[in-house]
């Protein structure tokens, strides 16, 4: 178990390093970053000053190692436009996005797992068909359009919820639904397939042969095993949501990491963009690691490995 964790941490580190290399090279995709910062038509002396200030005049390798060394210490440099350390801005915004992501994944799980279980317990029933329809429809709705439609109905027509901002918990309801529904189909399908498979297994027959009541058979014996792959999926999807929150945060003007990313992309604030991509990549890798550990916790067979 320890060896497994250490090995996975090693892979996580390597992934983070690769991502850092890719994001760092993003600066040079555009050509000369000094010109990009100074803006079109800036004076040559200004550009030269900027180049000196940010150290663009040094060899690229030196710049990368320097940047990486800073990143490892939690120093992502200074924002081109906000005149603040990037790390400070990111860690001020990150909690909002994590809160939004958690609410979204919570919504998805609360909707998808019961639907998936019910569909599996009564395969081909009306309920199963309904669940399948929810899945098919959910997968096809463009997130931004669904968000706007929610605003139109829940926010404007019925005036149930505030439209923009991130001040109260009500502000998070619509964004969480808009962000979370996209994951619902995948979770539901996986739950349904898992429960169906487990219900057909020999140990479920053993449990029934003991005279256990149907709820005990379902919740104690079936769900515990069927839910294991769902846990991994949820962790991975949570990572995707943090990355995908940019659309939702922009629409609902939630002051999180996604909105920050949007702002920095518009201002061509490269250090901030790089740092956000790197932070999200590290979070994703840590989440997959967490999913593996959770799996080992839920499945005793994996613990020995």
């Amino acid at each position, binding site marked *: 178990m320890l060896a497994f964790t250490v090995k996975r941490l090693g892979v996580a580190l390597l992934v983070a390093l690769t991502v850092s290399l890719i994001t760092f090279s993003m600066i040079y995709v555009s050509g000369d970053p000094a010109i990009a910062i100074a803006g079109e038509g800036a004076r040559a002396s200004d550009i030269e000053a900027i180049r000196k200030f940010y150290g663009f005049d040094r060899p690229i390798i030196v710049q990368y190692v320097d940047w990486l060394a800073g990143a490892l210490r939690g120093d992502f440099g200074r924002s081109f436009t906000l005149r603040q350390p990037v790390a400070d801005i990111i860690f001020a915004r990150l909690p909002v996005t994590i809160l939004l992501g958690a609410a979204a994944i919570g919504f998805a799980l609360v909707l998808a797992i019961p639907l998936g279980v019910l569909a599996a317990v009564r395969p081909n029933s009306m309920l199963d068909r309904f669940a399948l329809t929810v899945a098919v429809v959910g997968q096809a709705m463009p997130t931004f359009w669904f968000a706007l439609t929610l605003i139109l109905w829940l926010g404007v027509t019925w005036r149930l919820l505030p439209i923009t901002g991130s001040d109260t918990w009500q502000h998070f309801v619509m964004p969480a639904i808009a962000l979370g529904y996209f994951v619902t189909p995948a979770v539901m399908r996986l739950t349904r397939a898992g429960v169906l498979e487990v219900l057909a*297994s*020999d*140990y479920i*027959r*053993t*449990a*029934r*042969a*003991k*005279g*256990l*009541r149907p709820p*005990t058979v379902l919740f*104690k*014996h079936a769900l*515990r*095993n069927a839910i294991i792959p769902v846990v991994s999926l949820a962790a991975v999807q949570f990572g995707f949501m943090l990355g995908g929150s940019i659309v939702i945060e922009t629409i609902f003007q939630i002051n999180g990491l996604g909105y920050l990313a949007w702002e920095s992309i518009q201002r061509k604030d490269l250090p901030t963009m790089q740092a956000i991509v790197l932070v999200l990549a590290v979070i994703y890798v840590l989440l997959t690691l967490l999913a593996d550990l959770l799996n080992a916790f*839920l*499945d*005793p*067979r994996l613990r*020995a490995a």
Partner: protein
Amino acid sequence: MSERILTVDNLRVDLPVPAGTLHAVQGVSFHVDRGETVCIVGESGCGKTLTALAVMDLLPARARRTAQRLELAGRDMLSIGERAMADIRGARAAMIFQEPMTSLNPAYTIGNQLEEALLRHSRVSRRQARARAVYLLERVGITAAASRFKQYPHQLSGGLRQRVMIAMALMCGPSLILADEPTTALDVTIQAQILHLLAELQREFATGLVLITHDLGVVARIATRVVVMYAGEVVETGTAAAIFSRPAHPYTRGLIACIPVPGRTRRGAALGTIPGMVPSLVGKSIGCHFASRCDYAIDACRSADVTLEAARDAGHLVRCIRHAELPALAPTRVAEAAP
């Protein structure tokens, strides 16, 4: 007369399949008394497993079960509801399955899975349940029972898991145990140990035991009575002594001819085989099911259904119109010699 534990009368199991209805069990009747070991023998697909599952009401959801009578310890199991049946399962009748590797839930400890049947069916404390579980683990021959109790199924070998399954079946002191080929999936050396254990525990706890197997060597050693099934039907039933000394049905005779006997079967000599294939059980069929493979079949065998008739010994029934003349007959068809 001794106490009757299980009565099965005219049990039928039908399964819908794409080609129509599969009549998997066609009017099977047998009974089990306290302290008896009844062996159901027959080849794969003859309906013996479905018969056991039907008794426990554990058939697949799409299967349909009908019977004239199905009584466990005097209680009618046809009319009781799902809840009442669940009260009986595990408490009065327990089942041991063929696949010990997959029959235990990988997510819970052995102890947890042993305790839960007792906790479900009787008002005992967790401590009492644990004490009984550890006692039974020791009783089925598991050393260091207290530490095995805390282990997960994947940490145990197949033989140990089947011992756990046996202990689990005994947890509530059932009057009937159904064991469905409990040793098929195990190593040969372990098979004998497990069967020996089952027979011993059956005597000690005075339960009725229904042992489903295709191993006639085992049957000869531990059966009180034998039920021979072929293609969904009982073809012959009687005391073990009668079946083995005077088998009346050509199928039973064929099965017995397949058993190698130490000292009598010459080394390198071909064992008996039964040629042909089991007929399809989909749709209606007329005549003796075994006719197509039988060395003694005549036209009469194929034209009308055959009923169970009394043979010479008491309680010995056979489904063959020629059983009386059989010992003196020459085969109507010369069996293909096995290579």
